[in-house]
Each structure stands twice: as structure tokens, then as C-alpha cells.
């Protein structure tokens, strides 16, 4: 193939759009033709310059918050509706229909408040110089460490074969109620697991997943305990760790 024909393909070459045989053929040609290889190099350089120059404008923090909120508000509305369908039949015998909306709003506000507090605990703990009081990746060390320090026991999952690792734990408090705070790691992200007695935790009696600030939450009740999982990772990862904890024996 003459040079002129190759010249027409240099853009596609720089853009990585040539088929493998074409790529190999052009490679062969360029080894013999200095002109074409210089031109190809120039295309690649130009492309790179545009890539650098083109990353130019950054959204303001206010605008980012505005759009994030507008998208997440819609999501909250969706889950709220779903939640009502599940719980309404059970509650109808207890409360007047007129009072229901108040209850829903109050419960959700309470839950948001608890989430917010736990997010603060998560951030403050990770920022401190000694995030954990018992440093161990071994659940068989961490679990007994809590005995005598908090008024309940719990099971921790085996993590072998997963991407999660345990960093350690500490005693924490939510509304003066002592509980366990465990820190796990997943791909350079730290995830907090909080465990409180269910009666003592001021959370409303609802479980589910949500996002507060930039954190993903999941919480549920199990064997008289309430679990909260918090982290700046996606819902799938939070869900995966939650499942491990739920299945722990």
C-alpha cells in the first residue's frame, strides 16, 4: 500500500480504531518509512495535547451538591414509597391513617439523624491517629476483645476468599449506648460496621439502604442487635459486606 493510503488511516491509528491486521500492516510500513512514522507520531502528540488542554473546566462544589441532591432526592422518594407499602398494613391497626404521614416523616428524619451521626463517627475515627483500639485482622482476636467492654456479643464473618479485610475495632457510643465499631478495608476504602443493642439504639425500627452525604448505608436488626454498615463505596460493596455479617456464625 502506498504512503498516501496509509496517511488516510493515521487518525484511526492514533485513535486506536484500526483493526489488528491493519495495525500490524501499518507497523510494518512504518518500520520502513520514516515519513509515515513521523506523521503518526505527530497525530499521537496532537491527540495527547488536546486531551490535556481539553480537561479544563471543573464544576463548583455548590453546583455539584445541587445536582447530587436533586438526583438523590428523587431516589429517596422512591424508597419512601416502597417502604410505605411494606409497613402500612402492619401499622394501620395501631395508628390513625391521619397520623401515618407524621410517623413516616418522623421515623425517616430520625433515621437520617442516626445515619448522620454514624457518618460523623466514621469520619472522625478514620481521621484520628489511633482509629482502632484492638488492631487485628483476626476475627478470633477481635471478638473476645469486646467481651466485658460492651454488654453483648456478636459474630464476625470469615473473610477468606473475599476482597474485604478486618483492620480492628473499638468501643463507641451512640446516644450514650455502648456498642462495637469495627473497621474493614476494601480496595483502599475503609468501611465502618457499628453494632448496638437493638432496644438501645435510637434508630427507628426500619431497615434498609440509603445514602447520606457521600456515604452509603445499610442497616438491619438481627438477634436483638442493630447493625449499621457505612462507607464511601458503592451500594453493591456495602451489601456484600452486610451479607457476610448477616451470615456470620
Amino acid at each position: 500500500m502506498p504512503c498516501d493510503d496509509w496517511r488516510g488511516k493515521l487518525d484511526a491509528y492514533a485513535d486506536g480504531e484500526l483493526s489488528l491486521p491493519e495495525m500490524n500492516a501499518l507497523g510494518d510500513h512504518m518500520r520502513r518509512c520514516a515519513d509515515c512514522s513521523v506523521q503518526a507520531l505527530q497525530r499521537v502528540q496532537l491527540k495527547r495535547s488536546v486531551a490535556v488542554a481539553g480537561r479544563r473546566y471543573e464544576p463548583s462544589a455548590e453546583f455539584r451538591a445541587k445536582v447530587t441532591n436533586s438526583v438523590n432526592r428523587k431516589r429517596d422518594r422512591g424508597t419512601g414509597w416502597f417502604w410505605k407499602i411494606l409497613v402500612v398494613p402492619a401499622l394501620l391497626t395501631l395508628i390513625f391513617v391521619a397520623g401515618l404521614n407524621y410517623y413516616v416523616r418522623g421515623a425517616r428524619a430520625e433515621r437520617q439523624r442516626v445515619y448522620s451521626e454514624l457518618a460523623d463517627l466514621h469520619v472522625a475515627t478514620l481521621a484520628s491517629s489511633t482509629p482502632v483500639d484492638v488492631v487485628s485482622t483476626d476475627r478470633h482476636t477481635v471478638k473476645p476483645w469486646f467481651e466485658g467492654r460492651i454488654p453483648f456479643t456478636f459474630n464476625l464473618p470469615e473473610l477468606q476468599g473475599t476482597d474485604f479485610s478486618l483492620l480492628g475495632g473499638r468501643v463507641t457510643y451512640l446516644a450514650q449506648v455502648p456498642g462495637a465499631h469495627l473497621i474493614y478495608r476494601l480496595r483502599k476504602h475503609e468501611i465502618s460496621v457499628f453494632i448496638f443493642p437493638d432496644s438501645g439504639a435510637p434508630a427507628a425500627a426500619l431497615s434498609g439502604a440509603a445514602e447520606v452525604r457521600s456515604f452509603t448505608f445499610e442497616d438491619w436488626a438481627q438477634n436483638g442487635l442493630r447493625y449499621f454498615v457505612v462507607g464511601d463505596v458503592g451500594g453493591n460493596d456495602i451489601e456484600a459486606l452486610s451479607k457476610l455479617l448477616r451470615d456470620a456464625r
Partner: protein
Amino acid sequence: MEVPDPRLPAANFADLALPLFDQLYNFAHWLTQDRHEAEDLVQETFAKGLRGFQSFQPGTNFRAWMFRILRNTFLTSRTGLKSTVPLEDDASETIPSGDLSPEDVLVEQANRDAVRQALNELSVPFREILLLCDVEEMSYEEIAQVLTIPPGTVMSRLHRARKALRTRLLEKSPGGVNAVR
């Protein structure tokens, strides 16, 4: 560890769209050349995306879908309507020949600002296709979806866009085109 999300697709618009926020904003700002207009454009894109998410086909390219919404919204905006002039800088334009290529000038100057200025001066069709290809690193197929043009047109328009960009860069070299000759 990835677990497939069993939740409803409606809950996932935010998960899919928010990671594109920075890219969409950058693209919007390049198109509108104005912060406030860019913000309006991005906001409208997210609102339209959220409303139309039911019609989005899972498994197809979500990023291309969002960029297409943004671009179509831009084209119907006041600034966008003004920008739909026919493609200038057409292939008839010749690049001055000489020992020094536009790319050499570029390397010599290492001047990001010159590239920015040159990009700014290009017509919207040329500017947008270069941003999609070089900044967003979209494939020709993806670009074709965003711009709703055939992949063959993507290739020829890109070629002309780069030619136009190189001409502008050359003009910006010290002394202008004549000095290069």
C-alpha cells in the same frame, strides 16, 4: 467483590449518572463557553436523563446516551442555535507546507493555552468531536451514537477537525504562518 444489584433500575440513575458529572460539566462548559449556561445545561441534562431513564435500554451505552441528551439540549438552547452554522474550516483549507510541522510548533511551545484557544475558535461541530474523541476517549462507534451520525462521518469529520486545529495552531506559532514557510 461485585454482587449484581437486585434493586430496581430507577434507583440506579444516580449511581450511573453521578460518576459522569465532571465529564459532562467539562463538555458543557466547552460548548457554552459560560459557567452559568454550562450549569443550566448540565442540570437540564440530569433532569431529562432522570425522567427518560425508563426508556434507556439497559446494556446500551449509558455514557453516550447522557452526552447525547446534553448535546441535543445544547443545540436547542439560545447559544446552541447560534452555533449551528455550517461546518467552516472545510477540507478546502490547506495546511502550509514547510520544514516545521504544526506539531513541531506545538511541542516547541508546549503551550496548552494555545491548544485551548485554538479549540475555542473551532466551530462547535469540530470542537465537540475532538473533545469526545481525545478528552473523553470515546470510540468512533460511541461518538456516532452521541452525534447521531454514521461512523464513517465520524472519521471524516474528525479528520477535518484535526486539520482545522493544526491550521489554527500553526497560525499561533511565533510570527504566524509566514514565518513557518
